[in-house]
């Protein structure tokens, strides 16, 4: 039989919880309702509703935009894998200490400085139009491939730094212990340091992937028919912006689940409750 004191405490806890929920609900209604009211009562709303949120336009354009969106999905899946590999390679070269690696180390530093420092859209332009202009045999000429290469360069530079931070965060004693049991430096990295580093940086890595997934739209400037481009084309024919909203929803459909995954990995404090 719980004591009266305990029952009293539990009742107080329940009251506090109910009051918290009531306040959360009320403030949500006020804030969200206020924003909705502001938008819906604005003088331009009827026009905006017709040009951005037309159900007929949505139904007509959605299949085409969705079909084009598959290209985005394919590109980011391939680029994500490439970025994981290239980023790791650049990070490993950058932390390697052997003197023979010096020129490679310089290249790795230059790689990060260069590709992280140039706006992604500019990089897509330069690779997309610059590489074919070289007229070298064997270089890709497909705009999609060139766009994917540009995205890989840009994101690998970020991801290399994420990996490097992770590797540096693993305590030096771990490397020492690995060497002490007779492993080589490379084995110590592979079996002891890297597994711990990758686990630690998984949330920021996924965060970069959220950014990458929407930046795939940038390859549209080279011409490939991905979701944003397709939506623009329909918009140019109908003068209605609903297809762009449809494209936006598709991007959200992949980035939001990824963002929730990042929250979950980062611990409960990041999650929406």
């Amino acid at each position, binding site marked *: 039989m719980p004591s009266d004191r305990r029952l009293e405490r539990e009742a107080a806890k329940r009251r506090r919880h109910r009051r918290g929920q009531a306040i959360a609900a009320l403030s949500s209604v006020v804030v969200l309702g206020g924003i909705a009211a502001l938008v819906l009562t604005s003088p331009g709303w009827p026009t905006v509703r017709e040009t951005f949120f037309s159900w007929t336009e949505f139904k007509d354009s959605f299949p085409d935009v969705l079909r084009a969106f598959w290209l985005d999905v394919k590109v980011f899946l391939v680029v994500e894998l490439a970025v994981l590999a290239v980023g790791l390679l650049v990070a490993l070269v950058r932390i390697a200490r052997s003197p023979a690696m010096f020129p490679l180390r310089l290249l790795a530093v230059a790689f990060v400085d260069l590709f992280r420092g140039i706006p992604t859209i500019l990089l897509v332009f330069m690779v997309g139009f610059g590489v074919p202009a070289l007229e070298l045999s064997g270089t890709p000429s497909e705009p999609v491939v060139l766009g994917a290469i540009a995205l890989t360069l840009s994101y690998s530079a970020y991801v290399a730094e994420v990996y490097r931070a992770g590797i540096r965060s693993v305590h030096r004693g771990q490397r020492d212990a690995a060497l002490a*049991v007779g492993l080589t430096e490379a084995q110590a990295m592979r079996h002891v340091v890297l597994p711990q580093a990758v686990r630690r940086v998984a949330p920021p890595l996924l965060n970069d992937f959220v950014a990458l997934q929407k930046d795939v739209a940038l390859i549209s400037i080279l011409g490939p028919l991905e979701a944003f481009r397709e939506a623009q084309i329909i918009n140019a024919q109908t003068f209605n912006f609903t297809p762009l909203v449809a494209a936006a929803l598709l991007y959200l459909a992949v980035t939001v689940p990824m963002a929730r995954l990042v929250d979950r990995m980062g611990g409960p404090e990041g999650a929406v409750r």
Partner: protein
Amino acid sequence: MSAGAGEAALELRGITKAFGEREVLRGIDLTVREHEAVALIGASGSGKSTLLRCIDLLEEIDDGDVFLDGETITDPAVDPVAVRRRLGLVFQAYNLFPHMTALENVMLGERRAHGKTRAEAEEQGRALLARFGLAGREDDRPDNLSGGQQQRVAIARAFAGRPRVLLLDEITSALDPELVGEVLEAVRDLKKEGMTMLIATHEMTFAREVADQVAFLHEGRILEQGTPAQVLEAPQQEETRRFLSRLLQAGRA
């Protein structure tokens, strides 16, 4: 290769080591004979850890030589990896691999450095963990083990490679007092087997019991060396007496 009983397994001659301007070791001469346990005592910061790290080639010495079975291991031409495979080092803070189970910690070196198959390494690993009282904890990660259990896993890991000499670096000083006993028991067990050991320690009772020789390290030099009875009961040097009386006041001797 194998030295007879009483021959020098590990020999240090004139070891010096400085970190920048700070001279940590200023000419260390020390011999650890086969089957012998040598206790290295001295205040924090006297260079005990640095010395053990230098022997395991985790730090590069500035001058002098370390001989393992008569062969210099501190020559720049010697492959440090091959040397470390003949030595074992147990760290003060255990340094277990947190992403691996206790068993995997013990198996890693055997598989990757000593070329054992998974089955061989696993069989040996299980036997070693059982020997140090860890049967049933094979699949636990280090953070599910007590400090004493973690340190025993670390001892099993260092011992797995059948080292010629086992280096123990203050292996009980990160432990809660009630966990010290179980770790020292593991070392006693190794001593009984005839393991050659160099033990940096603050546990004087233990040094008295297990060590054949005690060396007192002070400001980077070995100030006094002898049997435990000589050094701990009848120290000749003023600094040794002062160090021991400080330990006595702290209730550690």
